[in-house]
C-alpha cells in the first residue's frame, strides 16, 4: 500500500469548507427530534459518513492520519455495511441509490483515492447479485456475455430492482462480510506466492514503499537469500523506510538515488513494484519514477512484476493529464529557502506516473498471477458495467 504523500492544502479554503460542514451538522442536530430511535440511527450514520469524508479530505496531510489503501478499502466497506444496515430503504433500487449518492460524495472528497470508488462498485455488484438470486433468476452475470442474448433479451433488462425481498438485507450484509474477510487476507495471499517467483541469489529492484511488496519480499526471505535494491523515490524518499524495514529481516538491501536506476539495472534480475491503482487497460498509476523504472527494465529485458491486490483494480482508463495527475506542494522540490528565484521559476511535483501495459510482465494479485492483457476480464467479474460511472 503506497502512502499518500503530504498535501499542503490551501488552508483557508479547506478551513472554510470544514466550517461549513460543522455548521451544517449543528443545524441537523438542532432540527431532528431527539427522541425517535430511527432518527438517532440516522444522525449516527450521517455523523460517521461525515467524519469519514473529512478523513478522506485530509488524508495524507499532516493533520489526518496516514493510511494505506487497504485500510481505506476496509473502512469504506465497513461504512457501506453500516449504511445498508441502518439507512432506510425498501428495495434494492433505493439502497443502490443511497449508496451511489454517498459514493459520489466520497469519491469527490479524494479523487485520487480510487479504492473508495472500487469498493462502492463492488458493493453495488453484490447488491445486484443478491437481488438476482432472491428473484431466483439464473441470469446472474451472463447479461453482457453473448451478443445473441443481448439481442433476444431486450425486455427483461428493464428490471429496475423495485421488488421487495425480506431477506435481501441480511444477504447483502452477509456478502459484505465475506468481502471484508477477503480484504483482510489479500496481503497474505499475495505473499504466499512469493516463493514461486523469487529464486536464490537474485537481485531484485523496487521503488518507493509498498506494503504489499514488503510483505512479499519478507515472506520469500524466510526461505531464500537474495539482494534488494531500493530506489529512494524522491522527493518523499519513502524508499528509505522500505530499506530499513527490509533490513530488519536480514535482507541485503542497497539504497540508490533515482538517478542511478538505469546505471544499476543491468545487474537486476527482476523488478517488483507496488502500485496505487491498476487501470482498466492493464496500465498502472504508480508513484513517480515508476515509468522510468519500467522503461529501463524493458531495455534490459528484465521482467516487471506488479504486486497489487484486487481491490486496486479500477474501471478508469488513463485520461488526459488534467484528471490523471495529482500534484503536491512544490516546496518538496524547490524549498522556500532558495529565495528569489522561486518567483521566476515553475516547479512541479507530480505524485503519480502512468505506466502503459506493454511494459508490464505480470500482475500478482490475491487471486493469482495474470498477464496485463487479462485485466479487462477480471474487471468484468468484479464490477457491473453500469456502475463504472457512479
Amino acid at each position, binding site marked *: 500500500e503506497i502512502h499518500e504523500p503530504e498535501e499542503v492544502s490551501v488552508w483557508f479554503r479547506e478551513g472554510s469548507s470544514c466550517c461549513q460542514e460543522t455548521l451544517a451538522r449543528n443545524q441537523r442536530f438542532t432540527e431532528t427530534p431527539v427522541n425517535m430511535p430511527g432518527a438517532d440511527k440516522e444522525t449516527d450514520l450521517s455523523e460517521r459518513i461525515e467524519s469519514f469524508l473529512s478523513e478522506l479530505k485530509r488524508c495524507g496531510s499532516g493533520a489526518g492520519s496516514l493510511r494505506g489503501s487497504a485500510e481505506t478499502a476496509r473502512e469504506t466497506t465497513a461504512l457501506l455495511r453500516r449504511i445498508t444496515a441502518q439507512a432506510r430503504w425498501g428495495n434494492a433500487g433505493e439502497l443502490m441509490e443511497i449508496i451511489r449518492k454517498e459514493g459520489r460524495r466520497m469519491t469527490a472528497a479524494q479523487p485520487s483515492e480510487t479504492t473508495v470508488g472500487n469498493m462502492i462498485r463492488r458493493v453495488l455488484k453484490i447488491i445486484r447479485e443478491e437481488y438476482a438470486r432472491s428473484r431466483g433468476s439464473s441470469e446472474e452475470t451472463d447479461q453482457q456475455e453473448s451478443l445473441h442474448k443481448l439481442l433476444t433479451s431486450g425486455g427483461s433488462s428493464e428490471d429496475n430492482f423495485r421488488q421487495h425481498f425480506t431477506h435481501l438485507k441480511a444477504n447483502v450484509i452477509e456478502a459484505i462480510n465475506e468481502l471484508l474477510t477477503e480484504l483482510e487476507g489479500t496481503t497474505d495471499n499475495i505473499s504466499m506466492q512469493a516463493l514461486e517467483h523469487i529464486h536464490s541469489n537474485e537481485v531484485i529492484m523496487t521503488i518507493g514503499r509498498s506494503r504489499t511488496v514488503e510483505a512479499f519480499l519478507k515472506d520469500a526471505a524466510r526461505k531464500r537469500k537474495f539482494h534488494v535494491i531500493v530506489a529512494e523515490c524522491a522527493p518523499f524518499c519513502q524508499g528509505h523506510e522500505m530499506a530499513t524495514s527490509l533490513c530488519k529481516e536480514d535482507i*541485503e538491501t542497497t539504497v540508490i*538515488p533515482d538517478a542511478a536506476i538505469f546505471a544499476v539495472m543491468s545487474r537486476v534480475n527482476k523488478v517488483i513494484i507496488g502500485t496505487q491503482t491498476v487501470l482498466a487497460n492493464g496500465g498502472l498509476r504508480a508513484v513517480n519514477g515508476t515509468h522510468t523504472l519500467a522503461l529501463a527494465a524493458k531495455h534490459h529485458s528484465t521482467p516487471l512484476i506488479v504486486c497489487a491486490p484486487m481491490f486496486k483494480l479500477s474501471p478508469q482508463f488513463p485520461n488526459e493529464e488534467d484528471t490523471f495527475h495529482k500534484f503536491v506542494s512544490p516546496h518538496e522540490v524547490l524549498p522556500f529557502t532558495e529565495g528569489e528565484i522561486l518567483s521566476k521559476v515553475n516547479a512541479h511535483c507530480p505524485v503519480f506516473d502512468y505506466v502503459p501495459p506493454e511494459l508490464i510482465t505480470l500482475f500478482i494479485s490475491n487471486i493469482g498471477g495474470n498477464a496485463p492483457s487479462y485485466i479487462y476480464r477480471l474487471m468484468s467479474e468484479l464490477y457491473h458495467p453500469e456502475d463504472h460511472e457512479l
Partner: protein
Amino acid sequence: MGDRLTTSTLLVTEEDEKKHEIIRAKGEGKELTKEEKQRLRKEKKQHKKNKKDDRGPPEKEKEKEKASVPAPSKPATQSPAHKAAPVPVNASASESPVAAEKPAKSKAELRAERRARQDSERASKQGKKEGGQQSTSSKPKATPNELQPVVKRLPDHVQVDDPVALKKLAKKLERQQKSGQGCSLNITGVKVPLRSDYGYKVSLFSHLHQYSRKNPPTQQISIPVTVIHPSIVRLGLQYSQGIIAGSNARSVALLHAFKQVIQDYSTPPNEELSRDLVNKLSPYISFLSQCRPLSASMGNAIKYIKKEISNIPSQCKEEEAKRILQECIDSYINEKIILASEAISKYAIEKISDGDVILVYGCSSLVNHILCEAFEKQRKFRVIVVDSRPRLEGREALRRLVKKGIRCTYVLISALSYILPEVSKVFLGAHALLANGYVMSRVGTSQIALVAKAYNVPVLVCCETYKFCERVQTDSFVSNELDDPDDLIVTRNGKTHLENWQTVKSLGLLNLVYDVTPPDFVDLVITDLGMIPCTSVPVVLRVKNVDQ
C-alpha cells in the same frame, strides 16, 4: 635502436636475440636499473611461488599459464602481458603432453625456468621501450598506420579489491616522497597520504574506493609541507570537498595550479628541467588522485603538460623555459576550453529554433553557456531543468539561467515521464566520450536519454574534443566513482530513517557519480570540430594523434 622498436612487431622469434637484448639492456643507462631490479625481484618471487605450487596438480598450473595469456587486461600482479608471451607458452604447451609422464617436480622446475626467462624478456622489452621513448621523445611518434599495442596498465583506482595492488600503491606513494626531495634533504614522515575507505561498500562496487568527505587527505599531511606544493594541497582539498566540481572547472583549476608550481620551481643542480619537473609533478598527481580520482579531461591535460615539459630543449635557460610552459598552458586553456565552447555554441545555436522547449540535466558549464548565448541572440525558447538527489546541481544551473532572464521550469528526475511530452530537445553535457561511442556523464544522464528516446525526443550531447578518451566501457560498474554515502541521508518530518545505516549490517547506500549512456540513445554530438555521430569518436582521436 629506437627504429627497431617502432617498426618491429612485438613477436620476438629468436631466443638469441632476446639474450642479446638482455645484455644490451643491462649495459644501458642507469634509468633502467630500477625497473630491472623490480623485474628481478619479481622473478625471485615467481621462483618461490613455483616451488610452493609444486604440490598442486599439474593441470591447474597449465590452465593458469594458458589463462594468463589470452586475458591481458586482467589486473595482473605481473607486468602487462606482451605478445611475446604466446610463443614461448605455445612451445611449453606442446611440450607439456610429452612431459606428462615425467614426475611433477621436474615439470615445475621447467616451468619456473620458462617463467624466469619470460620475465626477463618482458623486462628487457619494457626497459627498452622506456629508454627508447625517452630518447625519441623529440622524434615524431609512430605513424598511425601501425596498430599501437595495448600496453596500458589498469588504473589503481579500480583495483581496490586487490590487496596486492593496494600495497603497490602504498609503496609507490612512499617512493614518491623520496624522489621528490632530492638526496640532500633528510625529512622523514612526510609523504603523500594514502586515504582509507569509509563505510560498508556495496559488493558490486568492491573494486572502487569510497571515501568520506569528512576525512580529507589534507588532514593527514603535516605542516609545513615540503613534498607537495601548497597550491596543490589547496586544490586537493577543493576537489575532495566538492568545492570545485565539473570537468571543465577541475581541469582549469588544475592547470592554474600547475602554472603556479612551474613559477615556483627551480631546477636543482646537475638536473635537467625537462626531466626533473616531470618527476616533481608525479607526487602531486598521486596526491590529487587520492583526493578525488582524476577525470578524463584532467588526464588529457596532464599528458599534454608532461609532453610539453619533456619537449623543452636542454639548452634552454630556466626563465625562458618557464615562460614557454606558462604560455603553453594558457594556450591550452584558451584553445581547448574557451574557444572550443565558442565554437560549440555556434553550432548548437543553429539547432535551437524559436518556440523550443529544451531540457537540460544538472549543471554543465558548456550547456549553460550555449543557452545563454542563444538567449542573447534573441532565440525564443524555454528551459526545463531536471535535477537529482543527492547532489542537486540543477539548482546552480537554474540560478545562472534565471539570472540571464531565461524562462525556466524545475523538476526532479522522477518526474521525467510527466514533463517529457512537453519537451522538444534534450541538451546534455558530458564528462568524457569513450572510444566505443559511449558517453560518460553524471549519473542519471543515461536515464534521461532512455526516456527521451521512448518519447522520440532528440538528444544532443555537447562535448569538447579534449574530453575524448581512448578507454572503452560498456556498463557503469567497471570504472566509476563512489561518492560519500552519507549524502543520501535526509531528514523529513523530523525523522531520519537512514541515520544509523552503518550499524545495520545488511544495509548499504550507493552514491554513484557517473554512468555511461549507450550510443543508440544519443542522436548527435556537438564538438568544436563539428557535429558528429557518437560512433565517430575514435576517428577524432585518430586525427588528433596524427596532429600531435
